[in-house]
């Protein structure tokens, strides 16, 4: 770990100003905000992140969950994952989000982890996290990708490129993707309101750039659109052990049922994509169809059609299919 200075931001403006001193808000950023610290401090100890200045944003008033007049839910950037998972509004209207949060990390970590930090957590690709491996395009642009020919059981099969196959590991962001969340950002150029689908980037040739944030950009809150009484949702996470492990495959499903018919479906996948993976292909298969296993299977096929297996992770394609089918079965068979 290198030396760094720590500043407590007294205001949003101050945080933005300090953040804007960095050339990038992506890998290599010399200024980093710290929220719960459960990603950042780890990576600093591992020398993967080497900010010279760390700006503590925990003093900012961004820790509220508010129901807006239009029925949407506004979640402050600093709401702790544990609090959000047990929030009554979330439990009532967005069970998928609560389930996703509770499936992630451990109790202690969720007590520290925040909404914004969770959205911005970094990949668990082991080659990214261990600097003894020189080749990692995400960490050191242009250095190569050690994972493609290496131990890549946990890596992605969707959205990969020949430069990077790392997953985005968040569970929460997968649920938020299925919920079509919007991420609110304040920066040097004012406020922006970004659909979560547009927030993350696939690696392409620049895996070091993971999202649309610019220097100084501060996430202030996330909005979840209102649900209807017919909306049901569910999150299913598959992994080796029963707890405290990232997803090998996960599915967030949000459906609106009209009797037995699926009026609307939103499907997002975790553990398999280079970003929280929305599958419009699967959604198209399902919408207008009866809630039946045959259609779930077709949807799962569609979701994974573009998947590309690597040395050790080909099983994820079938695992993700199973995960989708089961999640849909559960969500459509629950008593409303």
């Amino acid at each position, binding site marked *: 770990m290198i030396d760094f200075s720590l500043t407590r931001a007294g205001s949003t403006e101050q945080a933005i100003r300090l953040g804007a001193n960095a050339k990038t808000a992506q890998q290599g950023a010399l200024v980093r905000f710290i929220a719960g610290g459960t990603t950042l401090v780890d990576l600093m100890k591992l020398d993967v992140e080497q900010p010279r200045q760390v700006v503590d944003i925990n003093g900012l008033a961004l820790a509220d969950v508010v129901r807006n007049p239009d029925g949407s839910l506004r979640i402050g950037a600093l709401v702790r994952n544990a609090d959000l998972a047990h929030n009554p509004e979330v439990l009532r209207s967005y069970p998928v989000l609560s389930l996703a949060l509770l499936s992630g990390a451990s109790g202690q970590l969720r007590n520290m982890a925040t909404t914004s930090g969770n959205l911005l957590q970094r990949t668990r690709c*082991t080659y990214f996290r261990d600097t*003894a491996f020189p080749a990692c395009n995400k960490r050191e642009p242009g250095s190569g990708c050690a994972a493609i020919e*290496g*131990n890549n059981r946990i890596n992605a099969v969707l959205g990969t490129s020949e430069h990077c196959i790392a997953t985005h590991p968040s569970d929460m962001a997968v649920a938020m993707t299925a919920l079509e969340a919007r991420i609110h950002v304040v920066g040097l150029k004012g406020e922006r309101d970004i659909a979560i689908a547009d927030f993350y980037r696939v690696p392409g040739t620049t895996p070091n750039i993971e999202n649309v944030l610019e220097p100084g950009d501060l996430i202030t809150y996330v909005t979840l659109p209102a649900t209807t009484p017919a909306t049901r949702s569910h999150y299913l996470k*598959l992994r*080796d052990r029963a*707890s405290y492990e990232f997803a090998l495959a996960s599915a967030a499903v949000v459906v609106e049922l009209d009797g037995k018919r699926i009026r609307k479906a939103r499907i997002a996948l975790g553990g398999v994509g280079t970003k929280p993976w929305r599958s419009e292909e699967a959604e198209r298969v399902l919408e207008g169809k009866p809630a039946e296993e045959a259609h779930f299977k077709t949807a799962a096929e569609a979701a994974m059609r573009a998947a590309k297996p690597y040395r050790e992770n080909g099983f994820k394609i079938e695992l993700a299919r199973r*995960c989708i089918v*089961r999640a849909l079965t559960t969500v459509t068979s629950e008593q409303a």
Partner: protein
Amino acid sequence: MADDINMANPAPGTPAAILGSAVPRIDGPLKTSGVARYSADFNLPRMVYAVPVVATIGSGRITSLDATQAEGMRGVLKVYRHGNMPRLYKSNPASRTAQVGETRPPMDDETIYYNGQYVAVVVAETMDQARAAAGAVKVRYATTPLNISRDLSDGFTDKMEVKSKRGDVDQGFSAGTVTVDETYITPIETHNPIEMHAVVADWDGRNFTLYESTQGVANAKEAMADMLGVPQENMRVVMQFLGSGFGGKLFPWTHTPIAAAAARDLNRPVKLVVDRHMMFTNVGHRPRTVQRVRLAATSAGKLTSISHDYASDSSLLDEKGENCGEATPLLWSTPNLRVRASVVRRNLGTPTPMRGPGAVPGLYATESAMNELAIKLRMDPVQLRLLNEPELDESTGKPFSSRHLKECLTTGAEKFGWSRYNPEVGSMKKGDLTIGWGVAAASWIAGRSGTDTHVSMNDDGTVRVVCGTQDIGTGTYTIFAQVVHARTGVPMDRIKVVLGDTRLPSGPMSGGSMVTGSVLPSIDEAAREAMGQLLKIATSGNPAPFPGAKVDDLALTDGYVHLKSGAPASGVRFEKILQDANVRATGGKGSTQSSFESDAAKKFSFHSFGAHFVEVEYDPGIARLRVSRVVSVIDVGKVINARAARNQIEGAVVMGVGMALFEETQYDARTARPTNNNLADYIISSNPDTPEMDVVFLDYPDTNLSSFGARGVGEIGLAGVAPAITAAIYQATGVRKRELPVRIEDLLHPAPALHSI
């Protein structure tokens, strides 16, 4: 004096009845309140910090090592590397009492034998300064081809070492009507105790004191005296509390002599904590094993032949084999048997014992083969085992000191409900889930090692027992106090147990599940001696509270010395007798002879036994498999502390779940560096993976081993868990994978039912 106490079968209501009861850990409050000091918790005045720099290639040579920048950094005192590393001797390779993990003195040459090898060590005023400077040391390498091949067939040659042999296995094999010939594989596993290896080394100009995370202070003292070239009396090793070891901390690893040498060179105390990455490369692991097992049996299920050939991988530096055939020659009866072993060399760190070394991977193979044989025979796997129970240890011809494996199997079967077992694959259901059942037997060697102890009765009313063994988190402090209480009747809270210091009488290493069996009798002997001296003072001291009485007329109850004919309260507190006589303490010495040297003990084959019955739940739709229920029946002689013993078995079963389903150190094939080298990626069981567990101890005292009848319970619990789980997996899923761990990807495509009875 009460020298007639039956320690193996204590009378109810007497102090000795504490033997076998569920006494809470006496060191528990120290640990939960943070008072207990682990090795890295020692902080000495003027102490500095050492942080290693590790090789990032798996095979080759250092071509340049540039420490200029690091040496100029704030707080840095010195950067050690090949060339300026103070001289270290090799520890005596012929010694059995001074063993080290990796025998090459650190930084002895510029060759890289494995990824992670220490190539330099930075010492600085603070930990952060040392870490920062370690990151600034620039090392260049020339790589040479590396070999970490997982295929160990190079070990399967005519040159395999014959470990045990009787009859003719080939003839026996052809004589069988039903045979199994399969190869089973276990991966490299990393111990991963929560407490990382650590040492604080202090040098006073003449003497070393090492606060060392070790399972054996006595061995560490000798080995480090050897390596640092000082007389043994100038080396002291202290270990008060260990955050577990699982065998990984039996022998000192290279960081320890580095810290000690630096402390002497700099004349400052040095702290060195091995970080989690290095825990995967520099401090040993359970090696990979490939094991071919051939069984043959008559159609009635009598074994006609057992052949067990295996290879394990070791480092280029040391040939350390995994003794997979440890239990094979004695577990089942067969006229024809051969066990052969070999070791192949790879660009990996030196392996080291891990909980149940040899027997645990070995039994995975042989007990899996037994389960496969049962299926081929269309015979119940419990029946098959009962049928092949030997009369005596057929490998030595000696009787077993105490063997109750049949009862383990029958009791377990009954507790588990085995009579409802339906061997047809996928036939047993629980709601939407398919369940599977499996069984396997367990065995682990027992013995005593030589030990000395000292017990004193003090004028402050305490009894103090001291021994240079150690408590590695398993309850040793507590059971030693129990023995003193059993003998003297002095209340538990007045008994002080002092361990983990080479200044104390020499005690055994905490390994091989041998501390309990070894030390208990010597504590008892010492306590009797201390008590006898006390009673002598009581009758003939000046003044003597019981002048003229005979020692035999007196008893010690609850701390009171009194006439046997009178009530305890009519007597005198023992500390009062000492105070009045102006004697600070009486004290006695006890010792136990090693069972490997004792003629009486040599007449028997000492082993512990057990049986595990396992249920798994399988959700085929999502390939999810969980171990739901385990019944373990364990035959370890007399149980001394029911709570600590159960804790050992339950912990071992949970570890066995990890062995069967999760654990494997994965190496990058190009660099030989482990990739899952942290606790998030190296998957072990988590709390929700813990099955419902029922642990039964048969509790038959083994008085051939000691008057207490206790063997030891640390390792047996892990033996046999994995093969019982994989048998259950097969029954639930039809998937027969003969390589651990069995993962979710293996269970995605269950095979159709392969057999039915």
